[in-house]
């Protein structure tokens, strides 16, 4: 599931400073994650991406929440209940706080990043089962974001201004390390999805971490070519095989 998330992440992260005109609070996207077993795609888990408002005494933030949960028939074999969150500026989607809580089989881990954009550092707290809490401060670049916020940030790019083959690079912090990724714009494509036939932007996703995403143009993502730019379909190849992410439902869209 880590790989699926990394794929999704890598699928989406981008360094940009655009204004948010695609994502609003109250949006909920639901996906089915399927894995290729001996040539047969098997539905493994449900992935949701949800947004909501969070009011503090100083400001109103946008909470970006992603969850992954295995379907009940797999729970006895390998139960996954993962929670990823990012609390961001609603206008620019710049993250302040990132939280990750994963429960996969007998493995569990929690991670918290507190961003300080002034000092370009991230204060991290890692908690693992039967291990002491680990605190570490990591220096980051000016455009570095967490997985979840970069995942949403990709939707702020203006693909109409891009030519086929154009590339964008991005930096994300994952497991307290910065990693580089890139997307390549491959043009338009119309595909059938559970929410209807959609004209989409087709993007190839790459990463400098060869152990995460493998091959060139093996990891493809389709974003709707409308104001919402929601990811509707993704194909990925990871070290343990290949699979896909298909949209099931989309509600609360801004445009």
């Amino acid at each position: 599931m880590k790989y699926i998330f990394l794929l999704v992440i890598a699928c989406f992260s981008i360094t940009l400073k655009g204004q948010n005109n695609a994502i609003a609070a109250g949006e909920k996207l639901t996906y089915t994650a399927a894995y290729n077993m001996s040539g047969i795609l098997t539905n493994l888990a449900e992935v949701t991406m949800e947004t909501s408002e969070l009011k503090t005494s100083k400001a109103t933030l946008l909470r970006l929440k992603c969850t992954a949960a295995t379907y009940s028939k797999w729970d006895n074999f390998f139960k996954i209940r993962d929670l990823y969150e990012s609390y961001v500026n609603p206008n620019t989607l710049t993250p302040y706080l990132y939280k990750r809580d994963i429960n996969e089989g007998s493995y569990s881990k929690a991670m918290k990043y507190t961003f300080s954009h002034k000092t370009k550092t991230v204060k991290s707290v890692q908690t693992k089962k039967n291990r002491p809490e680990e605190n570490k401060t990591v220096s980051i670049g000016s455009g570095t974001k967490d997985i979840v916020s970069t995942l949403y940030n990709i939707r702020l790019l203006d693909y109409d201004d891009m030519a086929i083959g154009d590339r964008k690079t991005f930096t994300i912090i994952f497991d307290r390390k910065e990693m580089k990724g890139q997307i390549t714009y491959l043009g338009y494509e119309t595909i059938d999805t559970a929410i209807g036939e959609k004209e989409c932007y087709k993007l190839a996703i790459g990463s400098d971490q060869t152990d995460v995403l493998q091959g060139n143009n093996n990891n493809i993502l389709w974003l709707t070519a409308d104001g919402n730019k929601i990811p509707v379909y993704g194909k990925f190849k990871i070290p343990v095989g290949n699979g896909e992410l298909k949209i099931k439902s989309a509600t609360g869209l801004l445009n």
Partner: protein
Amino acid sequence: MKKATTILAIITSFLAIILSVLPVSNLAIFPAIAALVFGLIAFYFSKKSGHVKKIIQFTFLLTIIALSITIYKAIFTTIEVADTETLEAKENESEEEALKDLEDIDLEELEIGG
């Protein structure tokens, strides 16, 4: 040939029945098809020699059961996420904790509207 195909039919039909009762039941289709093919070959050679062993018919029975279970599960089993209470509780708890953490963070640097 007869002996080899009979053994292969037995192995693949057992594999099909095992896979059919697991969550990966759709994978049972491959050994089930193989079991049918090997079973038919074994049946053909046995008939040619004048004596059809009961074990060949038994592999057909196992294969049919495996295919029935696989098809039944493919049609009638709904895929759903269960046992989400812990995750939902964790989501709420995490939001409350985040609210506390965010109160301590200097948000003004990003000029957010209140």
